[in-house]
Structure formats: structure tokens, C-alpha cells
């Protein structure tokens, strides 16, 4: 108990003094996970909408596959991405292993199915006739899809939160593909793991508290947008 109290104290100390290393780590966490979420949004929403709106043989299989992907273990993703990015691996020519890029890639792989799955559900729960109404209003196919996505924006925002929350708190993949390199690929979660094994439990808890605060702030912003939209 004493340790937790010390950790919280430490967290405030680090934040108030603008500790440059902790600031850098926090900012990198936000950046890597934010960019990964952004990429996942583009991929997840477009593919998810496509899956939801088209009929094709094996659709049910694909949807269940996506839903399974929502629970991809980050460690497995990390391992696979590492093997692909190895110098002598299939994507070795990119030379991005142990860079923030690699972390973004791995986190995007984790977050994309989450956002895709939520998109499929969100689009499918819109009334069927809404598509007809939009077409009858003179919309092109592209306009129709865009309007449908806009109509599903509330559950989609929940998807963004789930995706970001999933990757920002994830450690297995980040440590594998990023390597926890000081000042370069060290993010809040990997730093927490390292400080724990160093026995600096107070710093580890402080980093955990900062991570919680970061996740909370991002979710607060998104929730505010969501609630505002809801009342429109």
C-alpha cells in the first residue's frame, strides 16, 4: 500500500517538474498509439463498411474472423511483426524494426480488427431502409457510404476509444518490435515493465498512473464529443 501511495506522489512530482524523460516517453506513447489508431481508423472503417454493406459468400465467416481478431493477443502480433521486420525477414528491406514506425505498425495490426469489428456492427445496426432513403435522396454510392458512416458515428467513436485504449495500454508487441530503446522507442508501458524489473516500483507505479491519466484524458475528450453529438 505504501508503495502505491509513493508511486502516486512520484507521478505528480514527475508531472509537475516536467521531467524531460517522462514527458518524452508520454508524448511518444500518445504519438505512436495515436498514429496507430488513425491508421486503424482508415483501414478499419473502410473495410468494415465494405463488409457490412456487401453481400458475398462466406460473409459470416469473414465477420467472425474479424470479431476473433478483436481479441488478438498483442504478444502474438508482436512476434509475427518482428519476424516479418527482421533484417532477413520478408519486410526486412524496410529497416524499421526497433523504430517507432514498427510500433505503429504492430499497434495498427492490433487496433484495426477492433475498429473494423465495431464498424461492421455499427453499420449493420442502422435501419435497412435508411440506405434506400439515402439513395432516394439522390446520393451516389460514395455519398451513401459517407452518410451511413456519419450516421454510425456514435458507436464508431466508441470504437476509436476501444482501439486507442487497447494499443496505448499494450506492452507485449511494443517491447518486441520497439525494443524499449531509451529516448527512441520507450513508451509508458515498456518503461513500466523495465522499472519494475529494476525494482523501482515507485517509478513503475508513477508511470502507470501517468498512463491512466493519458488514457483518461483522451477518453474524456472523445466522450465529450460523443455526448455532444448525441444531444444534437
Amino acid at each position, binding site marked *: 500500500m505504501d508503495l502505491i501511495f509513493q508511486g502516486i506522489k512520484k507521478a505528480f512530482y514527475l508531472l509537475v517538474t516536467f521531467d524531460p524523460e517522462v514527458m518524452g516517453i508520454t508524448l511518444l506513447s500518445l*504519438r*505512436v498509439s*495515436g*498514429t496507430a489508431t*488513425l491508421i486503424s481508423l482508415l483501414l478499419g472503417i473502410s473495410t468494415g463498411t465494405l463488409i457490412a454493406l456487401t453481400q458475398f459468400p462466406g460473409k459470416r465467416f469473414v465477420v467472425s474472423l474479424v470479431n476473433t481478431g478483436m481479441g488478438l493477443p498483442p504478444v502474438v502480433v508482436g512476434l509475427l511483426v518482428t519476424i516479418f521486420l*527482421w*533484417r*532477413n525477414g520478408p519486410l*526486412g528491406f*524496410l*529497416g*524499421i*524494426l*526497433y*523504430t*517507432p*514506425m514498427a510500433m*505503429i505498425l504492430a499497434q495498427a495490426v492490433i487496433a484495426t480488427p477492433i475498429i473494423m469489428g465495431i464498424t461492421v456492427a455499427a453499420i449493420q445496426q442502422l435501419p435497412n431502409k435508411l440506405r434506400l432513403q439515402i439513395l432516394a435522396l439522390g446520393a451516389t454510392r460514395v455519398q451513401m457510404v459517407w452518410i451511413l458512416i456519419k450516421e454510425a458515428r456514435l458507436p464508431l467513436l466508441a470504437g476509436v476509444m476501444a482501439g486507442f485504449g487497447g494499443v496505448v495500454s499494450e506492452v507485449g508487441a511494443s517491447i518486441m518490435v520497439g*525494443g*524499449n*530503446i*531509451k529516448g*527512441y*522507442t520507450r513508451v509508458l508501458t515498456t518503461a513500466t515493465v*523495465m522499472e*519494475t*524489473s*529494476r*525494482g523501482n*516500483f515507485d517509478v513503475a507505479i508513477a508511470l502507470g498512473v501517468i498512463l491512466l491519466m493519458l488514457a483518461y484524458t483522451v477518453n474524456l475528450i472523445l466522450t465529450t464529443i460523443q455526448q455532444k453529438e448525441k444531444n444534437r
Partner: protein
Amino acid sequence: MPNSLRQTKKRVCWRWIGAFCFLMFFLSPSTFVSADQRSVILATTTSLQDCGLLDLLIPIFQRRTGYFVKTIAVGSGQAIAMGRKGEADVLLVHSPEDENQLMREGNGVNRRRVMENDFMIVGPMEDPANIQGMRSARDAFRKIALSSWLFLSRGDHSGTHAKEKMVWSLLRINPEGEKWYQQTGLGMGETLNVASEKRGYTLTDLGTYLALKKNLRLKVLAQGDPLLLNPYHVIEINPIKWRKVNAAGSRAFSEFLLSKDAQEIIKTFGANRFGSPLFTDTGKKREILGR
């Protein structure tokens, strides 16, 4: 123009500015700095990162040479495996048998001893197997086995695990499967914590033990056997076998570790914090080894 329309226009404007700033923040170039010829991948053991020695040495090396060191801190076993696949440029490890294997396969070149310290046996305060003060690691291990008191093994193919297995094999004891022998599969720090909680014995390196000592209910019971010497070697990965290896960078790092300045830092590291240095440089222990 009606008021409501003007308001919508204003809101749309702010939205675009917000989105632009947002994108600029995430997609700014610094996020995408990728590896180049100036970076060196160092695969090493967690214990070196955890004790803080690398945080001291690497910035100096980077400042002097301009190389950027990517430290991947894993177990010695995994570090050597990375070297075997050409996925690292240089190794700093402490698992002599695996290192020899790597050299024999022709994956490594220029293996040199950087520093060393000792492994030691730690255990619960009451010392149920009664090994306190023993010098021989073999005798101590045998007594623990005979007492059937809990012994915690790393079980992760790290350097420490390799050393522990070596001692058991010298005793011709196969502890695997025994009730009193448990493998954590974790790093040194976690294993020490487990040993402390479960009141078991374990083999540890000095650095990690000292770093965690304040939170542990364990004490050093047996040490000083030359068998428990823990040497760290630097190995450059063979650039002829693995074309993508940064040969110049790994050579520079290896040279740096053996330089006078680096050795000085190693020799004194930890003295302030722990009361005694964690490592000895290469020169000093050579007499002890020289048999």
C-alpha cells in the same frame, strides 16, 4: 446573412484547424525516423540494462562516435539467438557455453571479455538447508537438493540459468521434475521476488540482487566459488555471413567497451549506490582465472 449560418461556418472552420493540428502532431517526421547506417543494434541481457550500467556507457559512446545504439535487452539466450540470425550487430552477454557455440557456427567474430562479477546463492533468512558460509557451489547445491527445500530456477535460457544448469550437471543431479525445483520462466528481478515471497533459494547475479535488496527478504548465503564466476563478453556478429550487419558500428562499440575510459566506468559502477562495485574490469580478475 442569417446568424445561424454564420455560426456553422465558424464552427466548420475551427474543426478544420483542429484536424490539421492533430495530423501535424501525429505525422510529424520525427515519428518516422528510420534506421540508417548510423545505428547499431546491441542485443544484451536485461540485468545490464536493469542495473543502469548501459545508461551510463551508451550516451558516452554515442557522443564520441555519432552512432545510435539500439539496446535490445533480453535474456542472454535470446540475445545469442538474435545474433545467430544476424538480427543484431553486437552482443554483450554472459552465457559462455552458448557463446562458444555461436563462435563455432561462425556467426560471431572477435569475442572479447569485457568484465565479470560473481553469481551467488541467496535464500531465506533462516537458511533451512544450512548452506551459510559455504564456498563450494557444488556442496551448497547438493545440500539444497538433499534438504528438498524450494529452489527457484530462471528457466529462461539466460546466462544465469545456463550457469545453474552447469552446476547441477557437475553434480549429476537432474532436478527437473522434482517437487522442490520450480522454474519461473521470468527475469532475474522477478525470480528474486518470487524466491523472497516463497522463501526459496536461487542463484543470482550481484547487480540485480543489490538493486532489489531493499524489497527482498533474502540474504547472500554462499559465494566465492570460482565456478560461479560470471564473465561478460562482447561479440561482433560476423558481417561476412550476415551482410546487413553494421560491421563498423559493432567494431566501434566493441572497441569502446574495452577502452580505458569505459573500463574505468565499469570498475567503479555501483560503488556509490551499493557500497561496492558491481563488476570488475578485465585486467584484475585475470590472475584468479589464470589457472
